[in-house]
C-alpha cells in the first residue's frame, strides 16, 4: 500500500506530506517528479500544496498539463484515491477532475490560520475516521482559496452530497463555506486546508492524521 506525492518545481508541501505518510505513519512513499508518467506502483496519489509552476498567472494553470497529472487523471478514472491539498485542489479543478474554481480570497490577502471545519460526510475512505458533523481544526494557508462555481454546479454538488468539509469560520469568502469537495464517485478529494500540518502533536494539532489513516485502513481492508 504505497503513497505517491507529485512534485512540481514550485511544490512546497510535498515534503510535509512525505513526513506524515513515511515519517509518522511508516508507509512507503514515492516522490513522483512532474515529468514522470508511471504511477503503476502507486495506490494513493497526493497532489501537494505550493506554487507548482510559480503560478503567477493562475494557480495550477500549467501543472495540469504535466505528464504526472495526465497519469493522475487515469488513476482517478480507474477509481483509485486522489487527494489534492491547497494548490493540489486548484490543479484538480483546472484539470477538470473536480468542478468549480479557486479564486482570489475576498479580502485580497494571503491567510495563514488554524481554521475550524465541519465534516459533512464520513462514508468516504478519506473521512471514515471522523464522526458525522464533527468539528476539526486544520491549518489553512492560501491567497487564492475562495471556492466558486456556477449556481447549477453548486446545486449539483449539494444534491450529490459532494461537499466533504465546510468552513465554520469562512476565511476567504468561498461559496456555501466550501472547504473541500469530492467527485461523484467519491475517490477524488480536493481541500484547501492542509491536513498534513495537523498530523504531528509536536507542531500543534492532530485532527488531520485521521484523514491519512482512514485512507490506509480502507485500502488495507479492501
Amino acid at each position, binding site marked *: 500500500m504505497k503513497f505517491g506525492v507529485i512534485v512540481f518545481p514550485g511544490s512546497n508541501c510535498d515534503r510535509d506530506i512525505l513526513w506524515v505518510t513515511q515519517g509518522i505513519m511508516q508507509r512507503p512513499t514515492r516522490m513522483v517528479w512532474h515529468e514522470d508518467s508511471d504511477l503503476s506502483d502507486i495506490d494513493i496519489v497526493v497532489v501537494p500544496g505550493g506554487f507548482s509552476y510559480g503560478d503567477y*498567472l*493562475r494557480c495550477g494553470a500549467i501543472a495540469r498539463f504535466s505528464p504526472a497529472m495526465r497519469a493522475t487523471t487515469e488513476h482517478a478514472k480507474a477509481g483509485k484515491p486522489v487527494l489534492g491539498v491547497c494548490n493540489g485542489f486548484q490543479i484538480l479543478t483546472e484539470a477538470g477532475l473536480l468542478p*468549480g*474554481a479557486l479564486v*482570489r480570497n475576498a479580502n*485580497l490577502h494571503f491567510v495563514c490560520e488554524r481554521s475550524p471545519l465541519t465534516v459533512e460526510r464520513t462514508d468516504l475512505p478519506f473521512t471514515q475516521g471522523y464522526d458525522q458533523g464533527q468539528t476539526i481544526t486544520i491549518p489553512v494557508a492560501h491567497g487564492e482559496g475562495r471556492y*466558486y462555481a456556477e449556481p447549477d454546479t453548486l446545486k449539483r454538488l449539494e444534491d450529490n452530497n459532494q461537499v466533504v468539509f465546510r468552513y465554520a469560520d469562512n476565511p476567504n469568502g468561498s461559496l456555501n463555506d466550501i472547504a473541500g469537495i469530492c467527485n461523484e464517485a467519491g475517490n477524488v478529494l480536493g481541500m484547501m486546508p492542509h491536513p498534513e500540518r495537523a498530523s504531528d502533536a509536536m507542531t500543534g494539532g492532530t485532527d488531520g492524521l485521521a484523514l491519512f489513516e482512514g485512507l490506509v485502513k480502507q485500502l488495507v481492508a479492501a
Partner: protein
Amino acid sequence: MTTYQAKIYVTLRPSVLDPAGTAVESGLKHMGHGGIEGVRIGKYVELKVSAADEGAAQKQLDEVCDQLLANPVIENYRFELQAVG
C-alpha cells in the same frame, strides 16, 4: 511563416465576484473620484506568435487561451491579432 503581435484580454465573467475591482472602486471614492463605477479588473497578455497565416495564428491562440490563459469556469477572453513581420 508570419509573426503576429497578439493582444489578449481575459476578464472575469460578470457573475463572478471581483474583490479587486470593488476595492479599487471604493479606494477611488475615498480619493474623491466620485463619478467612477463598474470597475472590473482582468488580465492583459501580449505575445508574439508565428504561424503560416492569420487563420492558423487565430486557431493556435484560441487553443492557448482555452487551455492556459483563461479558465472557462470563471473567465471570458478575446484577442486582437496584427501581423508584424
